[in-house]
């Protein structure tokens, strides 16, 4: 039951973008079209799930036995970078169509704060491997949901009469703020730390 609760919490009540404000860069940058938002969402979900698994293993098998928890940040980002590079190569070889669909998003997401934040939060909360996997997957799904929602709104906005000074980034930030308000409504449904 606990992994499932963690999943829902990471996806909705404690949505990474709209409650932690992590990963705002792709949230603003890649949200102009629904199609690219979906690509980014899938790439991020994939990378975050993989990250959750591998950083949990590294944390529990290497860092904690050696009492090197303070190295978490450096080692995590390093491992994530290597992992994504490797996954990119594998996908390029095995499935060119998937490689084309994920495109530039896959290497881009590597150094995003949402991925590192996920790894560090998971380690901070002492999740075990299964819990952390669900945590990563849920965070990815939450990221995709938020990206889809805002890209849908932004596509609608394009044909609307937005004041000239608010066009582009400003109106997107205002929408992001309103969406964060809306997501606050979910808090308390599931409480989990």
């Amino acid at each position: 039951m606990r992994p499932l609760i963690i999943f829902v919490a990471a996806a909705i009540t404690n949505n990474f973008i709209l409650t932690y404000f992590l990963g705002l860069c792709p949230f603003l940058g890649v949200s102009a079209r629904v199609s690219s938002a979906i690509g980014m969402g899938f790439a991020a979900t994939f990378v975050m799930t993989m990250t959750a698994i591998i950083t949990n293993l590294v944390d529990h098998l290497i860092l904690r036995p050696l009492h090197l928890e303070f190295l978490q940040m450096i080692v995590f980002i390093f491992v994530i970078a290597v992992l994504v590079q490797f996954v990119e190569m594998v996908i390029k070889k095995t499935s060119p169509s998937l490689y084309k669909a994920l495109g530039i998003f896959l290497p881009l997401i590597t150094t995003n704060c949402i991925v590192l934040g996920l790894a560090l939060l998971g380690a901070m909360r002492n999740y075990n491997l299964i819990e952390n996997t669900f945590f990563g997957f849920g965070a990815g799904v939450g990221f995709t949901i938020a990206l889809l929602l805002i890209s849908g709104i932004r596509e609608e906005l394009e044909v609307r009469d937005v004041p000239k000074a608010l066009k582009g980034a400003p109106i997107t930030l205002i929408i992001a703020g309103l969406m964060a308000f809306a997501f606050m409504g979910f808090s308390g449904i599931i409480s989990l730390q």
Partner: protein
Amino acid sequence: MNTIIISLLLTLALGLLSGLFLMISFKKFYVQEDPRVEMLLEALPGANCGACGYSGCVGYAEALAGGKETNAAKCGPGGQEVADKVAHIIGLDTVSIVKRVAKVMCNGTKENAVRRSDYDGVKSCRVADFTLKGDRGCVYGCLGFGDCVNVCQFGAMFMGDDGLPHIINEKCTACGKCVEACPHDLIELVPLDRKVFVFCKNLDRGPVAKSYCKVACIGCGLCVKQAPEGAMKLEKNLVIIVDAEKVDEVADKVVGVCPTKAIALDEKFAEVKTV
């Protein structure tokens, strides 16, 4: 001390192992790519200016190699030389291109255009345009703060002593950055062999335009009568060249009748150039 050594060893080992791992997997998962992309990239100038309409040289090279793009002459900075090379690599016939350059369609120098106020704000055309359309009498003309000069990454533009930006044709690559930068849309990309230009964008009525600029187009229409039918037209008190080739044929006649010299030969405009 012990912790330092352990953490040092750990990161070192991790780095070495991952490096080795990535190296092996790179060899194992190596994907053959179109070698022409590499060749095209070498042939292209690598300025990544975006004049071709792609995100950069890589985008253009990939489109060419993938067969999506069949025009080998889209590279502005490269000119004829690069177009030939690119056409050779992808197996197209060579195309001859006329070099295009940017041209400022305003002759409102310090002497010609009257100033109506003192502008003491940020030295930027965009900002000046926002605050009461700048300090010159003409609200359509050059603002003179050189936004275009600042965006030029090829050093092809400079602000002359006359208060107008000038373009060094040899260095201009027609990338179009300055065209976007000008808040009054004064800069146009024109073929180098064109002769006659209307150096004015003023839409005010003749007497009004003349009150603040010596070289404004007053919309008298004398030149339209000299040009072949349909080659020029008068629109909102401004002459517009519709068919540049036909107008160039009767260049002297068209230029000769203009009472304000708003319409002029390119060389005439070049005389005020001071480096």
